[in-house]
Every structure is written in C-alpha cells, then in structure tokens.
C-alpha cells in the first residue's frame, strides 16, 4: 500500500472497509465506479473546477498572520477556508458530490448534519444544481441551531428532526443510512466527512484535497520552501485529510491533527476518538470510536458541534498507527482562548472547530522554534468562520447585556 492509497475494498491496514448492509453494496460500487469515471472525464473535472472557482471562491488564500506569528514566535500561515462560499471547506465536498449525483442520474440528495454546517452546504449545492435535498438533523441539534435550520429551509431543503437515540449527529447519520437503504435508486447520500463505508473516505478526501495542494503550491511560491508542519482540527476529519493529503509524501513536513478534548480526556467528556477512543466499527468503517466495554457507542462531547462525533475517518487512524501524523487533544478552554486571540490579533473570527487547530499550533510553536528557529513555519487550516458560533462565544465570554 503506497502512501494515501487504500486497497481495492477501501482498507488502510485494518481500518476502513465496508461494514454496511448488503443492500447498500450495489450503490457503493456504483458510486465508486461513477467517481472513477468522472475523475477521468475532462468535462466533469473542468465543470467542477469552474464551479469551485466562480461559485465557491476558490482557491482560498494562504494568509500570513503577522500579529499571531509575533505572539507565537514562529511563522503561522492560515489557509483561509473560512472565506469560501457558505463559510467553510465543506463547499468543496458538497459541490463535487452533488455534481457526481447529477452525473449518476440521481435527482435527490440526503445529508446528515450536526450543527448544520454540512446541511447548509448540502442545501446550497442542491439549490445550485437543482436537486431535491433532505437533511437529517438530531432533534437536540434542531433545537440548538434554529438559525441553520431556517437557512436550510430557505434554500429549499427539507429538514427532518431525528428523535431516535441520542438525537444528535450520530443518530442523524443512522437515519440518513436508513433513508438511503430505502431510496438508493433515486438518491445519493451526500456524506459530510471522510468517514463512512468505502468509497466515501477516499471520495471526500479527494474532493477536499485542494486545501493541501493549493496551500503547498502557495507556500512554495511565496517562501520557496515547504512548511515545517501543517495543522488542522479533526472531528470526522475532512478538513485535516484535505490539508494532509498533498503533504503525506513530504516526509519532512510534520502532520498534526487536533481533536476535541472537551472538558479533558480524563473526564470522559470529549470527542477525541484517536487520542481517547479505541478501535471499533461505526457508520460503515473500522476506525477509532468512542465506545463502552460492550461496544455500545458513547456520546461524544465538545463545545464545538462540528467536532462532536464519536468516530473519525479511517485514514486518520492509519496515519496515526503508521506514525505519519500525530494527534493531540485540545480542550474547550484552550480552543476558546485561541478563538479570542485570533479575533484580537488578526481581526478574524474563526469557527470554534478551527480554533482547536489554532490552539494546537500555538502549543506546537515552542517545539517548532526549538527545532527550526524563528523561521519555523506552520500552515494551519482555518476550516471555517465563526459567525455561526457567536452565540457560543457570547455565552462563554459573557458578552451579552448592556456592558462588558
């Protein structure tokens, strides 16, 4: 197995694969074949490129955060995915999959969503490409994220409130899978991250890999050299895989993933599956998951809804096992400190998800400076913007009321 390549059935070592009902295998095969053909089709590729450029605003900038760099003592470059249409890297994935769904002749897409970001992105792509769209969202999340529910509906999507299980992201994936088993002839499941059964981890990674290929080229062009490290937050792991993929063969570039440490790994209240979970099977793949002694899935927790997921993409499990990438947990407190720091030093309000990556980079800074001196350079994926998180931030920092 060469770097970054899964075997024919989607395995990276013991991770990945297809742990799904037989009824879905034909659809997964169709998707895999369809994707391979689409990649080889010049017309499809140029149409997708055009959409990404003209509609999504790509390529995103690589921005040297001077004041943040001064604070950290090393050079920090931010990959500005927060400036993309719909405010995150997710637009890359949804546009690619929606165009593929059209090509496969499926008039309907379904999606899961936690906080609503992937749901909004999916609804956007569906509106743009004239597809019917149903978004499954846990009842608990529907209540907490009323604004995103309104956005999705405004864009023409049907939002289904999922009342089963823990009524959060993992249950919305279960419900989307149940829908898909029943509707697979007419429906594409627009999965939001690099998890799930083969070919999703590879498909989604390939669609978001532009993050890394752009950043790598931008860094080379501007500084004449590769960064010493790259860093991203990891929930399901799509923005991190998107950043890492181009750098995996560059063995001198360290890859760092930062998971949701929540209230601390030792409290059990976290979403750090690689750091604090164990190997198991969930949502169609073998990876690291949060589970109890009987293999029942445990609720994850993070202040950031986008990192609040009890599994992680199988390629990350592989990158960790092979030692190519390193994963650490960042707590809610550390993430919110980084959130505030980026606001104040750069005038950029990041997503709370992305703040975990910023916090991680700040933690790495002394280590990198010691190894490489003050010219040490790190690329951080600023995967999304923080508008959606202002309620969380206002509550956390006590910003409401007449004076602060």
């Amino acid at each position, binding site marked *: 197995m060469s770097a970054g390549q899964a075997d024919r*059935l989607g395995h990276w070592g013991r991770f990945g*694969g*297809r*742990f*799904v*009902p*037989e*009824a*879905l*295998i*034909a*659809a997964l095969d169709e998707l895999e074949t369809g994707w391979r053909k689409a990649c080889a089709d010049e017309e499809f590729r140029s149409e997708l490129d055009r959409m990404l450029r003209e509609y999504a605003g790509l390529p995103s900038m690589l921005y040297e955060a001077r004041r943040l760099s001064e604070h950290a003592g090393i050079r920090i470059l931010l990959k500005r995915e927060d400036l993309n249409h719909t405010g995150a890297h997710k637009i890359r994935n949804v546009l690619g999959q929606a165009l593929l769904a059209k090509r496969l002749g499926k008039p309907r897409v379904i999606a899961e969503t936690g906080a609503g970001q992937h749901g909004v992105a999916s609804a956007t792509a569906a509106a743009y490409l004239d597809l019917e769209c149903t978004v499954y969202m846990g009842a608990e999340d529907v209540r907490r994220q009323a604004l995103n529910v309104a956005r999705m509906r405004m864009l023409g999507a049907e939002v289904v409130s999922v009342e*089963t*299980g823990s009524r959060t992201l*993992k*249950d919305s994936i*279960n419900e989307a*899978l*149940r829908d898909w*088993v*029943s*509707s*697979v*002839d007419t429906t594409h499941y627009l999965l939001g991250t690099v998890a799930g059964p083969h070919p999703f981890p590879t498909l989604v990674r390939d669609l978001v890999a532009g993050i890394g290929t752009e950043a790598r080229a931008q860094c080379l062009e501007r500084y004449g050299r590769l960064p010493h490290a790259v860093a991203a937050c990891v929930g399901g792991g799509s923005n991190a895989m998107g950043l890492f993929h181009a750098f995996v063969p560059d063995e001198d570039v360290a890859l760092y993933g930062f998971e949701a440490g929540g209230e601390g790994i030792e409290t059990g209240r976290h979403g750090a599956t690689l750091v604090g979970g164990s*190997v*198991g*099977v*969930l*949502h*169609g793949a*073998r990876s690291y*998951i949060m*589970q109890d*002694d*009987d*293999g*029942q*899935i445990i609720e994850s927790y993070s202040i950031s809804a986008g990192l609040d997921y009890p599994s992680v993409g199988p390629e990350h499990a592989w990158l960790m096992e092979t030692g190519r990438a390193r994963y650490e947990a960042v707590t809610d407190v550390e993430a919110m400190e980084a959130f505030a720091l980026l606001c104040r030093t750069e005038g950029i309000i990041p997503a709370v998800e992305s703040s975990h990556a910023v916090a991680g980079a700040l933690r790495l800074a002394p280590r990198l400076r010691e190894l490489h001196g003050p010219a040490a350079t790190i690329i951080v994926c600023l995967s999304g913007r923080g508008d959606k998180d202002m309620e969380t931030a206002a509550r956390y920092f006590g910003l409401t009321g007449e004076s602060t």
Partner: protein
Amino acid sequence: MSGNGAVSVTSVLEKTRADGRAGLVGYLPAGYPTVDASITAIRTMIDAGCDLVEVGLPYSDPVMDGPAIQRAAAAALAGGMRTRDLLRVIEAVSGHGVPVLVMTYWNPIEKYGVDAFSRDFAAAGGAGLITPDLIPDEADEWLAASERHGLDRVFLVAPSSTPERIARTVEVTSGFVYAQSIMGVTGVRDSTSTAAPGLVARTREATTLPVGVGLGVRSGAQAAEVAGYADAVIVGSAMVSCLLDAASESEGLAALRSLTTELADGVSHPTD
C-alpha cells in the same frame, strides 16, 4: 453445524421443507422489557410454534432497524442490558429443540473479541449469528471463529445484490440464506415485497441452502404467501410490537402467543 450436538438450523429447515411447509423464525431482542422477561417471551414463541428463534443483541446504533425494534433495543440498553446478559438468555432458551440464532450488529462482537464471543456463545448453546452489517468481504475473522466453534453464519442477500455477490455470499453462508425482501429497514408493512420471490429464485440458482425471507411480515396470510416461495419466514417487528403495545406483561405474552400461532398456521399452508 451446531454446538453441543443439538438440532441444527439446516436439519430443522430440511424437515419443514420435507413436510411441505416453511419454517417460522421469530425474532425478539434480549433484555426487553427485562432480561428475565425476554427469556419468558422467547420461550413463549418457541412453545407457540416457532421453528427457529432469532435473539437480537440490542445496539446503540441499529441502522437496519425501524422504529419498533429501535424502541425495544433502546429500552433494553437503558435497563442495563449487557452482552453477558445475552449469553444468559441464550443459555436459558436453547436446548428446547429449537435452534437459537443471534442477530447482531458487528461492533459489540468485535469489542467482546470475535473468537471469545464465538466460544462463549457456542458454550451457551447458540447455533449461529445473523450479521446485518457484516458482509463476507469483511468477515475473515468470523469465518475462522465460526468454523472453530461450530457456529452457523447467516449472511444477507438483498434485491440490489448482483448475481456475483449472491454467489460469493452463499459460498460462505451456512444454516440458511437471509433474503432481505425489501430495500428498507425492519418494520411491518401492509403488503409483502414484490421483489422477494425474484430474489429467492436468484438465490436458489446459486445454492441448495434453505432461503429465509424477512422484513415486513405481520400476519398469517402474509406468512402463507412468503411460505409459497421461501423455506423460512422471518418475523421480527410484529413480534416486538406485541410486547411494545401491551398494557401489561401478561397481555403482551398473550398477544405474542396468538400472533405466533397465527404465523405458524400461515407457514404450514403455503399459498401457491
């Protein structure tokens, strides 16, 4: 194959086939409403005429199940149901002349240890596993463990399965082949599937193993219809609903007994 020299799944279904009828497979989850009450309920299905029983291991993320089985499984887990309780249920309901299969999602088995579970399950008298989210492509460890401990492995085929996949699946299946009659999750339906007879016929082209049909059956008439083309009729959600909808435990057991009797009569009078 079967553990402990007890009656095997295949021999039961060969006998029902020789008798000109289909076998009735009843499903209930272990631990609902309690572990002990689930034992009583499963024994009730056996006494009322099930030829095989399928005991579900409740799981937190049951993607193949509809609302009825989800509800019962969630209640069982909330009541403290553990994997070791499943083994106690198996021990209590096996040895009554009716082979006992377990229907389980794969993660709890991986967590227990595939070989360790197979060993303990066989020792408890279990006959085999039905694995709705484990396809043969991912099943090497289970294939080895089931051989080692003499357990049947029931894999699923679906209306969307290609002839190549059906051939590959039946090759490693034992006991019977589980034909998922509809593209969808578990739950009762007013009409049975139109895809099922074709799927059973396609499966028979690939194997002489008995073929069971599940998903959607809830009445004697439907059971008779499915018995017209399948070797076994699998009933799950309708059984669970007897317990879910009942005002008391005894009422639930009475409903379960009555439904099982009706279904047993249905599978004995196959519709042509």
